[in-house]
């Protein structure tokens, strides 16, 4: 017998994995460059959500999970102890922050490339952009 919390968590995890698979398919096999960019953003967002979920300390009771924010500006030792006990793991969130920033740069670069390619080739179909072969 599983409770609602576990059920939702598992569904969430499974849907992320399916999302990763679908967006990987999109970015590798769809011929349109625009659709590739869309799939790529979906792919990196799914990866980021995976990181966030892993930082969510699943094995604790639902009441003992809180965001990693210190409410008291000058915390006492007790505050810090309770904080360490209830806060979710902040490290994956830091990782995600880095990944989002990098993802933005890459997406911008790809959009620029797509625009410039469209000017030269007159198409955004990958199958027709194949001058370099052999």
């Amino acid at each position, binding site marked *: 017998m599983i409770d609602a919390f576990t059920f939702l968590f598992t569904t969430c995890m499974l849907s992320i994995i399916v999302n990763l698979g679908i967006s990987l398919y999109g970015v*590798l096999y769809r011929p349109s460059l625009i659709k590739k960019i869309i799939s790529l953003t979906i792919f990196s967002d799914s990866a980021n959500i995976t990181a966030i979920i892993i930082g969510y300390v699943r094995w604790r009771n639902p009441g003992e999970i809180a965001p990693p924010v210190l409410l008291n500006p000058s915390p006492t030792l007790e505050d810090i102890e309770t904080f360490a006990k209830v806060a979710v793991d902040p490290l994956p969130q830091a990782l995600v922050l880095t990944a989002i920033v990098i993802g933005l740069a890459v997406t911008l670069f790809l959009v620029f490339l797509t625009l410039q390619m469209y000017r030269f080739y007159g198409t955004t179909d990958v*199958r027709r*952009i*194949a001058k370099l072969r052999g």
Partner: protein
Amino acid sequence: MLIVSDPVSASIFISLMMLCLTLLLYLVVKALKPKHSGSGDESREMYLGGEHPNILSKPHVLQSGLYWAIVFRDFKRVYRGLVEKVHTGIAIDWAYYMTAWLLILLLLAIIALGVSSLI
């Protein structure tokens, strides 16, 4: 150290290398030797080793001639496969080969997981 202490494998290596070079030279000589048409009829056409006559207008032998002379007949099928199946230049075709390699890695991982659950 390793190089001077093991003369046996060094000599095998050098002789194999020499053998390969000799084979290579043989191939080059064989390919560049003028061929006589075996048909035997009295045609007045100039025979250019199967090349199109317009190569005579070139000032010298093109470097691609080396490739075609040696390789064209013997490796035709290999090259057709390599160029038309693998290196097509279309990104989607690359993705098939790349994901195949990823899937092999993941498949091996799943098999290893099964093995470790048996242990």
